[in-house]
């Protein structure tokens, strides 16, 4: 035990500085209002203040910081996507992630594990080769590996997969990592707050007001605010926000579930994903097996979890890791995924002046937290969509110019 901790324990009052401010009154005007206090909203506020000197900013969060998908995800960070647009974008994010603990002076438990995406069929092998080539072209560490290499790295896995869908090979991505999701949101929030940004939890946006096609303010359950710019960063609640503006989008909400087992001794240092079996797993620093799958089968605005999920997941997982049949599931939960038809986000300016959208994060947006914050802050500050996110623009559907990322994003992580 450290001396500081011992001294602290004997003190009468434990007055450590608050991480977040006490709630206070809303002002009547802000230059920028950010809807949503998840990782994306906090990162955007941070970069607005830090890189653009814009500090008259309010982040409005209906619940608590990180209580949306940010606090519900399985925290996998990687850049081995399929499209050049996706690879460049997520690679920028991975590089930002690597420095976040230092930047925040807060341990985000960023842990580089190596990431295997298993292929059980010829067509999956073809996609892996395709991804490896695109990745290498952009300088990303990705390669196709055979059964021997997988067997050496993950010796406790049954490569025969109980005999019916043997593993043929995998895409190996050495930079694949996990991190502590809450700490990412908190680190950005503290950094934004220290630079003058206001964070209002338990404050829900109920309407967005416009005049002549431009944003003039928002209504909340704590009163109205005028503002010049609104950035919507609400993931699973996006259609409710865009409906306020009659702004049509392709986004549909599907629940995505995950679960953890009871903790066991650390034995697994890699992340294993199977696109064909639609499951993935990593071991947390506490020893729990963190497991997820694909989205639920039908549209639903709900975070209820279901037995069908655990049953379906266990069915596949036990084929890969037979010993897991003896592990108990400790907790399960769900988030609401904002799915797009091409499995890429929707980011940047919209047809409404002063309204910026950061959405369509589906099952894959945690890894994009730093780069989304950074590029959205730039976009709002300059009123121009940042070049890195131009391919993800709102108008790409009307232009029939989609980003086809399904091959690298369909298993939720």
């Amino acid at each position, binding site marked *: 035990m450290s001396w500081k901790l011992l001294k602290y324990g004997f003190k009468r009052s434990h007055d450590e500085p608050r991480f977040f401010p006490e709630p206070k009154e809303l002002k009547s005007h802000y230059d920028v209002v950010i809807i949503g206090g998840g990782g994306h909203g906090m990162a955007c506020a941070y970069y607005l203040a830090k890189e653009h000197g814009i500090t008259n900013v309010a982040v409005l969060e209906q619940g608590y910081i990180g209580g949306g998908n940010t606090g519900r995800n399985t925290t996998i960070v990687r850049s081995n996507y399929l499209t050049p647009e996706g690879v460049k974008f997520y690679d920028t994010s991975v590089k930002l992630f690597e420095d976040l603990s230092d930047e925040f002076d807060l341990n985000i438990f960023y842990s580089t594990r190596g990431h295997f995406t298993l292929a059980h069929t010829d067509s999956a092998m073809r996609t892996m080769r395709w991804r490896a080539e695109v990745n290498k072209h952009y300088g990303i560490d990705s390669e196709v590996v055979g059964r021997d290499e997988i067997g050496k790295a993950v010796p406790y896995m049954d490569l025969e997969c109980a005999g019916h869908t043997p593993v043929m090979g995998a895409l190996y991505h050495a930079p694949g990592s996990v991190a502590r999701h809450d700490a990412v949101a908190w680190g950005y929030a503290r950094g934004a707050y220290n630079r003058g940004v206001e964070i209002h939890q338990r404050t829900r946006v109920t309407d967005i007001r416009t005049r002549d096609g431009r944003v003039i303010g928002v209504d909340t359950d704590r009163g109205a605010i005028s503002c010049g710019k609104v950035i919507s960063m609400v993931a699973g609640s996006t259609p409710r926000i865009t409906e306020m503006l009659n702004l049509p989008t392709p986004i549909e909400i599907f629940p995505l579930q995950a679960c953890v087992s009871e903790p066991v001794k650390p034995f697994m240092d890699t992340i294993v994903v199977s696109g064909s079996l639609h499951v993935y797993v990593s071991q947390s620093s506490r020893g729990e097996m963190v497991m997820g799958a694909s989205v639920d*089968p039908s*549209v639903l605005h*709900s975070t209820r979890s279901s037995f*069908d999920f655990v049953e379906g997941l266990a069915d596949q997982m036990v084929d890969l890791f037979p010993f897991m049949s003896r592990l108990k599931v400790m907790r399960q939960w769900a988030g609401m995924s*904002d799915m797009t038809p091409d499995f890429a986000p929707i980011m940047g300016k919209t047809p409404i002046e002063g309204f910026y959208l950061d959405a369509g994060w589906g099952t894959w947006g945690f890894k994009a937290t730093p780069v989304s914050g950074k590029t959205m802050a730039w976009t709002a500050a300059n009123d121009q969509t940042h070049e890195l996110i131009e391919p993800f623009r709102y108008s790409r559907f009307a232009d029939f110019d989609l980003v086809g990322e399904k091959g690298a994003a369909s298993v939720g992580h």
Partner: protein
Amino acid sequence: MKLLDCPLIGRRPISEFDYVGEVRKPPVDCDTATWAAFVFNRQGAPSVLRERWYHRPTGYWFILDRDTLTDEVKAIVDAREVRYDIPA
């Protein structure tokens, strides 16, 4: 276990069903922008959606109105109600 009423044989586990999505009527003879909006855009906010489902074991297609906030099935819809003529 989540269950759904199959109009043909009654209550069955949800894993026996395939979800197809909202039943919509395509625009005919429209401009490109209208077509793009039909192809891609969806009713994303909570609502009562009229959607098509498929029950695999019986090979039965059916249509229902479901509240996407509460997951309640409001009505089974006769396919004749949503039919439309394909222009010659």
